[in-house]
């Protein structure tokens, strides 16, 4: 019995991690307004396809 997880060390070593710029863009308003429109259009297209 042990108390183990994939722990912080493994995570940092093996996981893909976003760059500082990507993290910045995630809350950068002008970019997110653009993404808001894109994501909504994509969702609407998918919803349309699913309903039909």
């Amino acid at each position, binding site marked *: *019995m042990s108390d183990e*997880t994939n*722990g912080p060390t493994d995570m940092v070593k093996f996981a893909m991690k976003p760059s500082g710029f990507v993290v910045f863009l995630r809350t950068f308003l002008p970019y997110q307004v653009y993404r808001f429109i894109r994501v909504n259009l994509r969702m609407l297209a998918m*919803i349309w396809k*699913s309903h039909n």
Partner: protein
Amino acid sequence: MELRRRLGREHEVVVVTPNRLWNWIPSNIWVGVGLMTKNDVTFELGPVYAGLGIRYEQARAVELHADGKTDAPHPFVTIERTDAEHRGAREELEYDYLVNATGPKLNFGATPGLGPEGNTLSVCTFDHAVETAKKLEVAIERLKGGDRLTFVIGTGHGTCTCQGAAFEYAFNLEFELRKAGVREKARVVFLTNEAELGDFGVDGMQLRTSSMIIPGKLFAESLFAERGVEWVTGAHVQKVEPGVAHYETLDGELHTLDFDFAMLLPPFRGADLVALDRSGADITSEVFAPNGFMKVDADYAAKPYEEWRAEDWPRTYQSPKYPNIFAAGIAFAPPHAISRPRKTKNGTMIAPAPPRTGMPSGIIGRTVARSIVSMIEGATGAPTHTASMATMGAACVASAGASFWSGTAASMTMFPIVPDYQKYPIYGRDLFYTTAEIGSAGHRIKSILHTMFLYKAKAKPGWWLIPE
């Protein structure tokens, strides 16, 4: 509501539900971290149904008599009242068409010590979420006092579904800890039955980015890594004692994880309705699957993962035994899982059950309602409308922290929900519609969905224009 809108007033629509309040379940996550109250996510059902001309019975269905009784052959359900005045009283309710939309029974009993009556917390109902928020507040005070605490969030059994809800709660909790300035004193661990992060019970997904196609696992892991949330995958929680979870992993090893705060989702089963024939003999196994969900027009023949096909999934949701009975949403029995089921060397099944999230549940409900309308109007004796989870997509916006400026969410779409490797070789899905991204745009969408679906559920003007 769809039935009432489409049927003439000579037809009666009756809703049987044990609840007085309607709950927008996705926002229970925000109740569970103290950002919303019970009132923000619920409303009284009575006035809404009265306004629509729908008869509302506050009761739970307990028995299904689809052949009626020897002396009265009309089909009926036995209902048991849940309102304070008549609690426990039983009545018979006749029907011509029946839609079973009883959702999941929260099966905390499957894991000893799991659930609010045991040693873990939950956000599955608004009451659970309110309690969880109180415990979180206490934990944050302890962190402020200098304690170091471990938070374990995830699934409480190897066959759980709804990993998305656990994912959302983990990141909302992590976000609140940061907001409170105590993040560095907290260890947050995500404990999941998924074989890989990003599986979500749909066998994961491949995502097309501007430069390459990446497995959803990488996308999910990157968020965990960025936020410093540890993870344990492929875990079946065997039991939970006060402050310690015992779990087995896919390699068959047994582990323990100490915690100060644990929110673990239960596995789901059907509402456990009993079906009886005209003589009163129990025919439950003919109408319902062993997991309590209702059998519909799916292919339930047991077959290995490699032989699973899109056609196994139901299209009309009609009971094969009773053509006037349908099951919608979580209540229908899926033919099999979507994710590859796995067994440990000790014989323990660690197999995420297939999710039936809001969008497919809503589309199925609408489809069933339309089929019933055309059957009543005599256009046909068979269901006219179809909606298979293998030909419909799902949009899921998973909150990763709620705040107007800095809140983010993962906006995910996939098409179809059930991979179809005949139609979409290699990935099983149309990668144009299978996407995921994280950002504050997602958080704004999630907030809009909260307002929009409460509007729709309250049957405000034009509610039916809002798609599921």
